[in-house]
């Protein structure tokens, strides 16, 4: 026993030894070096261990360290980390200096991540913090202007609709040019699922506040790991994960209101009468009809029982005549509110991130609303030293009360075209004019307010994005990771049109209900090894793996009519089940990928990657594609001759070349098909529906990128410059074939196009100290040119004015050139532009009747030449201000969708834009608006008259915040209280004559919408949103 006791004591001591060693307690305070303000939430970690803590709201911390040799690492996002050896200190105060764009940041690369300074490809990163709390429904809208070379056009102000995103230009014509979106490693469903109105945007099921970072893979080196799906760029979205330590709770509430950015001035009642009197008189003069003749246009318009009397409900020329601004009825102030709760924390073994959001946003057009409830749980668990498992799960329910497509009479903005003498309310019924039992044929067109009041179309979607992983550390340097993801999207669209809508939906005379159920199941698995090893000066990294994805989309649809009354709204009560259908489509991908990185002495960087992609979409003769890439980097500042340079703190030259593909060519474009949808009068029928092509495959893009990353003055100024050349061949074209074949198009890989451009990113820290001012700027220029479409004529969009032609950018406007007005008689004139025998162009003009003989010309590019954004952030004490402008320049917009009716110098009865008042008269001969001629074309044909400049500069977002002083906050047991005011699209600077220069009508065919950009068709302008918010952390 005696001999045992000392042993036991020794053992007991041994057990306690480490504890005793932890007896060294270090306290201190972490502040910023600029203004010495405390840094709450900074990480203090014992180097080489998992032991660590975070600073409190005062910036103070306390930690036990084992010995005086221990090293503490102090770090904070956006600051340069510091390592301090404890030695004999017991109080360690640390000042961290900011590192605006630290080159030691990690960027996500697809199946892995890499330190930014080692990256040889081009990857743009947008931090979650940059886009948080932006009052837009989807993440793609939020990144607008944030990343160089990423052009985002929200298209319409309707909520939750599809958005155009182009990474380094249009890479396709008939296939999609939208990037691939990957959330936590899984390619997600982004395709339009709309069955009414414009395209939907499945990305609006994702809460942007859950996002940690967004990486956009732009060049071939970065993208090749996604092979046949990367040619349009890849957007990698990484959601937030838990951090060990204290549980942090953050609560955010914001409340705001939106209004349309801009309106267009239309004629008021008096102007309307005056203008149409003139137009009708002119027409009668041309016809040689006396204006008093009962059959004259003047009498048709003004006479007893004429147009004005009828459509003013008899008030024309009476004391009751009033002005009704129908356009104003279309707009409303839309309130919005958003509540966010985020909780993160955990132990070293298990970490979690939980979030919930409620968003309720009302549109700026009447009848439009989007409501989303979403939740997320991200878990990581270290089961054993060698095994880590985790789960990310996002759930969302989005309810979108939608509006009809732009081209529908029920589109509220089309109210602008209604007669300003028509009362909003029919005095006989007290209901919106045109509502039965009142006369349904007033106003001029269907009154959209009837649709707003008596019809509804609501899309409800449930989304589950779940991704589970297991990661095995086989060796310290070798890991295997297996991911299994599922993206379930269940969407129900329910429409009901009460009998009042009969003028617009003629089958709704006793009510009409429809119901669409869409179910998309998308499975994906990634299984890959990754290897990372540093051997002296050599750093080696490798990734090898496979991935398999299968996606199925099912649709069922039922429609019923003949309801007992308007109180019955479900199809169960429909006496006639008037229509129904089901359909299904599938696609699958099987892929293998490899990436190798090599680095020598942090100086020379080499990377190569490749992917083999097989897909059910490709023809049997070309089922698998191979997509390799290679890149090189040279960190010049690591060389001896620059190492201690005080000015140039960082310089890296990099170059990459490789090949990627675009497989968004549709699910079955390769097959020669018959379809069974050609029934007649209740008998089943079939028809040839598609010409086959067994050689059909992906589109191939070969891209070279040369870049310079630089940092000056200890990286206070840093930036990137890139030049790229992107050549796409094997473009999938719906090659026009003579319609005499019984087909219009055949799919073939025949076209070529290229994109070239510069990108420039600059981040500067303009002042440091108590007053901090930073600027970050990105500008990109892209030149798009179609080089070969084998003489095909590809045109579409409004009146087929958008065209794809060799030597021109995709989707240029191609139309007759307007030559203004003949001073002598008010005739609209068009340039002939036909070639003369001597090779010159005939610049003589023709009038209306010679319109057909005028040659169409290229009249502008809907794709901007320059796209950019600039953010300035200021902070002083607890006040912060962020001002973000974005803009585009060099693009054109086609206003003909509106102009052919409403800026058409009075050809139809549609209310006219106010600029038409300037129409030619003998007294006003110098104008570009032709003489008003009622029901007689005089320049309202498609022409450059309606092609407008689309450049704009917009104060996209501005946020002013105030952090309550810490002492105050502590007193109420909080860690952080921040109040802010914010505005979206506060000011827009443009010469565009229409509503909003950020426009793409939502009502084009699927085919046209791929290339026919920049069309306005009574398209809803963007919202201008003002909001206040409060953020509380504890």
């Amino acid at each position: 026993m005696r001999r045992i006791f000392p042993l036991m004591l020794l053992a007991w001591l041994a057990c306690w030894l480490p504890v005793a060693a932890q007896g060294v307690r270090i306290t201190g305070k972490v502040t910023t070096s600029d203004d010495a303000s405390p840094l709450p939430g900074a990480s203090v970690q014992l180097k080489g261990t998992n032991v660590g803590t975070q600073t409190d709201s005062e910036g103070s911390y306390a930690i036990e360290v084992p010995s005086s040799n221990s090293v503490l690492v102090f770090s904070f996002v956006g600051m340069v980390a510091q390592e301090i050896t404890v030695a004999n200190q017991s109080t360690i105060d640390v000042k961290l200096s900011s590192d605006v764009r630290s080159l030691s940041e990690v960027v996500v690369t697809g199946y892995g991540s890499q330190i930014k300074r080692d990256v040889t490809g081009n990857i743009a990163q947008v931090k979650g913090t940059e886009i948080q709390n932006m009052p837009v429904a989807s993440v793609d809208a939020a990144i607008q202007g944030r990343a160089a070379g990423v052009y985002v056009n929200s298209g319409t102000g309707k909520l939750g609709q599809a958005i155009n995103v182009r990474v380094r230009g249009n890479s396709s014509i008939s296939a999609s040019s939208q990037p691939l979106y990957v959330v936590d490693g899984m390619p997600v469903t982004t395709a339009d699922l709309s069955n009414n109105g414009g395209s939907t945007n499945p990305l609006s099921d994702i809460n942007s506040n859950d996002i940690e970072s967004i990486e956009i893979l732009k060049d071939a080196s970065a993208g090749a790991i996604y092979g046949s799906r990367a040619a349009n760029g890849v957007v990698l979205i990484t959601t937030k994960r838990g951090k060990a330590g204290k549980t942090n709770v953050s609560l955010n509430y914001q409340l705001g209101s939106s209004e349309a950015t801009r309106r267009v001035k239309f004629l008021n009642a008096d102007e309307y009468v005056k203008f149409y009197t003139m137009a009708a008189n002119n027409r009668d003069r041309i016809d040689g009809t006396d204006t008093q003749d009962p059959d004259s246009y003047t009498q048709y318009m003004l006479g007893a029982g004429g147009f004005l009397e009828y459509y003013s409900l008899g008030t024309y020329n009476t004391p009751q005549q009033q002005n009704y601004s129908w356009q104003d009825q279309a707009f409303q102030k839309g309130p919005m509110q958003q509540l966010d709760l985020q909780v993160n924390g955990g132990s070293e073994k298990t970490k979690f991130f939980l979030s919930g959001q409620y968003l309720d946003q009302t549109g700026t057009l009447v009848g439009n609303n989007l409501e989303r409830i979403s939740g997320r749980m991200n878990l990581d668990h270290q089961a054993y030293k060698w095994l880590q498992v985790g789960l990310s799960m996002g759930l969302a329910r989005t309810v979108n009360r939608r509006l009809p497509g732009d081209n529908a009479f029920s589109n509220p903005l089309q109210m602008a075209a209604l007669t300003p003498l028509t009362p909003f309310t029919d005095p006989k019924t007290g209901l919106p004019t045109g509502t039965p039992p009142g006369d349904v044929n007033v106003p001029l067109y269907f009154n959209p307010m009837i649709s707003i009041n008596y019809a509804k179309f609501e899309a409800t979607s449930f989304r589950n994005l779940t991704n589970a992983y297991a990661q095995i550390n086989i060796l310290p340097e070798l890991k295997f990771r297996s991911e299994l993801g599922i993206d379930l999207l269940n969407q129900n669209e329910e429409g009901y049109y009460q009998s009042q809508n009969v003028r617009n939906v003629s089958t709704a005379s006793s009510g009409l209900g429809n119901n669409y159920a869409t179910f998309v199941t998308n499975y994906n698995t990634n299984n890959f090894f990754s290897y990372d090893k540093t051997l002296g000066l050599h750093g080696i990294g490798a990734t090898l793996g496979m991935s398999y994805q299968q996606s199925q989309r099912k649709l069922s649809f039922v429609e019923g009519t003949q309801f007992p009354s308007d109180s019955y709204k479900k199809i169960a009560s429909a006496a006639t089940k008037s229509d129904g259908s089901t359909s299904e489509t599938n696609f699958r991908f099987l892929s293998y990928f490899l990436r190798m990185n090599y680095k020598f002495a942090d100086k020379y960087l080499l990377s190569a990657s490749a992917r083999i992609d097989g897909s059910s979409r490709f023809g049997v003769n070309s089922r698998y594609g191979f997509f390799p890439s290679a890149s090189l980097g040279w960190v010049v500042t690591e060389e001896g001759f620059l190492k201690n340079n005080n000015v140039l703190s960082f310089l890296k030259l990099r170059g990459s070349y490789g090949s990627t593909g675009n497989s968004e060519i549709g699910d079955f474009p390769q097959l020669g098909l018959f379809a069974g949808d050609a029934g007649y009068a209740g008998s089943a029928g079939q028809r040839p529906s598609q010409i086959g092509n067994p050689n059909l495959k992906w589109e191939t893009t070969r891209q070279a990128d040369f870049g310079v990353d630089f940092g000056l003055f200890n990286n206070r100024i840093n930036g990137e410059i890139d030049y790229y050349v992107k050549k796409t061949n094997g473009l999938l074209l719906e090659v026009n074939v003579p319609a005499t074949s019984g087909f219009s198009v055949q799919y073939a890989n025949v076209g070529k196009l290229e994109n070239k451009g510069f990108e420039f990113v600059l981040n500067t820290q303009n002042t440091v100290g108590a007053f901090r001012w930073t600027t970050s700027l990105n500008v990109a220029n892209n030149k798009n040119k179609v080089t070969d479409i084998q003489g095909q004529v590809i045109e579409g969009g409004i009146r087929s004015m958008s065209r794809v032609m060799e030597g021109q950018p995709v989707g240029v406007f191609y139309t007759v050139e307007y030559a203004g007005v003949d001073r002598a008689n008010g005739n609209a004139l068009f340039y002939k532009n036909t070639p003369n025998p001597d090779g010159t162009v005939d610049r003589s003009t023709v009038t209306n009747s010679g319109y057909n003989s005028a040659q169409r010309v290229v009249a502008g590019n809907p794709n901007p030449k320059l796209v950019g954004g600039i953010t300035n952030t200021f902070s002083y004490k607890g006040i912060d201000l962020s001002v973000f402008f974005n803009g585009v320049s060099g693009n054109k917009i086609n206003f003909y969708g509106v102009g052919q009716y409403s800026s058409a110098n009075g050809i139809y009865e549609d209310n006219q834009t106010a600029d038409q008042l300037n129409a030619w008269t003998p007294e006003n001969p110098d104008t570009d608006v032709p003489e008003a001629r009622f029901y007689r074309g005089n320049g309202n044909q498609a022409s450059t008259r309606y092609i407008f400049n689309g450049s704009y500069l917009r104060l996209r977002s501005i946020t002013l915040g105030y952090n309550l002083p810490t002492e105050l906050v502590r007193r109420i047991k909080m860690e952080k209280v921040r109040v802010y005011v914010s505005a979206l699209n506060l000011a827009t600077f443009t010469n565009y004559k229409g509503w909003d220069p950020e426009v793409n009508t939502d009502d084009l065919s699927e085919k046209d919408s791929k290339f026919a950009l920049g069309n306005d068709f009574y398209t809803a302008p963007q919202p201008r949103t003002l909001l206040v918010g409060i953020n509380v952390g504890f």
Partner: protein
Amino acid sequence: MKKNRYIIPALLSALLMATGCDNRLDVQPTQSIDENVALGTSRDVEVTLIGCYDGLQDVDVYGGAFQYASELLGNSDELGFGGTFQNLLEMYNKEMTTNNVTATSTWRDSYVAINRCNNVLSALDIVDEDKRARIEGEARFIRGSIYFDLVRLYAKTWGDGDNASNPGVPLVLKPTRGVTDADKIPRNAVAEVYAQVLEDLTKAKSLLPESNTIYATKYAASAQLSRVYLMQGNYAAARDEANEVITSDAFSLNPTFESLFFTFLDNGGANPEEYIFSMIVTQQDGTNDMNTFFGTTISAIPGTAGRGDIRILAKHRGLYEASDKRGAFFVTTNNTFTRKHLDKFGNVLQFRLAEMYLTRAEANLRLNSQTGATPLADLNLIRTRAGLKAASAATIESVLKERHLELAFEGHTLHDLKRTRQNVGALPYNSPKLIMPIPQREMDVNKQLVQNQGYN
């Protein structure tokens, strides 16, 4: 770390297992089938024939476009136009552009239907023998009918210059499987197209049964032939075809004029006994584009619909005699519309017996013959039904006027004016403005085509 010995091979095999997935990439569509298996049985050909009717029924073919094009291009101040469809306004103003949507779609959709017919006609050998004649007859009827309507809309009128050299429309008589340069074919001459039309329709007439539910019959072929012959000025043949339809007793004049229309609202979707052939519209299938543009929503008559674009002006209404029931077959809101096309799901009328009587009367008059009946008897049959007094004499002029009133807004106007060489307003019958342009899209894609005069 011993376990690594098992893990790595296991993981590697898991990785490679995926190679077994290759066959998973063979995914077939679910709504469509491969063209190589589509025409394998008699039933397959029969349903493809239904597809031909579906193609014929297209709004830009027999669903309305051929008829309203004729009415708008042939109109001189009897119709008003107030819609926003520029394609229609261009026709109304006789200032068509080569991108006119109707010109483009009617051309395209006509050939879609023709290709379906060609598919049927190429697979007749697998059709059950007892059905073969009928199926060939129906496909030929549809193909011949479409070629006839194409050639009279897109080419010079028969007899305006040299039929053998005037360009008609391209004749495609084989189904398309792939498209090569060989499919870029020029326009056949007007005479060649008419020859093909006559071949198809005469053959159809000989193959088709006398009754065939809603589908084409021998008499539908006869009725179409009577139009073709009339267009060619072959009055004897036109008269004989019309006479054959009349004397078959397969059809009879409706007792009242008003009961001829509203096939869905008043007749449960069935054709009146006077109809020889129509495109059937149901709530599930088919659209009546005559309704779309001539019709309008009348609150008092549920089930009516339409854009109300084409209005009937006083000049037309003034043509009717006082007691003419047809002169009251209008409805007036702020504009006046014909009642013929108010029924949203009304069948799209193609031929009715009254036309046969009027054709026989006109031809008999011109030939000074009395086949079947005297022209006066035929004329008065139509007049008395409309509530008018019997005429005491029939002249070509009075028969043509009766034809204009009886068959108003049914697609005859332009062609009747052209064949009788009458002006449309100030435009002579052979004005290039009264001929559709070859669609710009076709001109661009097929350099073999020549554009019609006035559109270059």
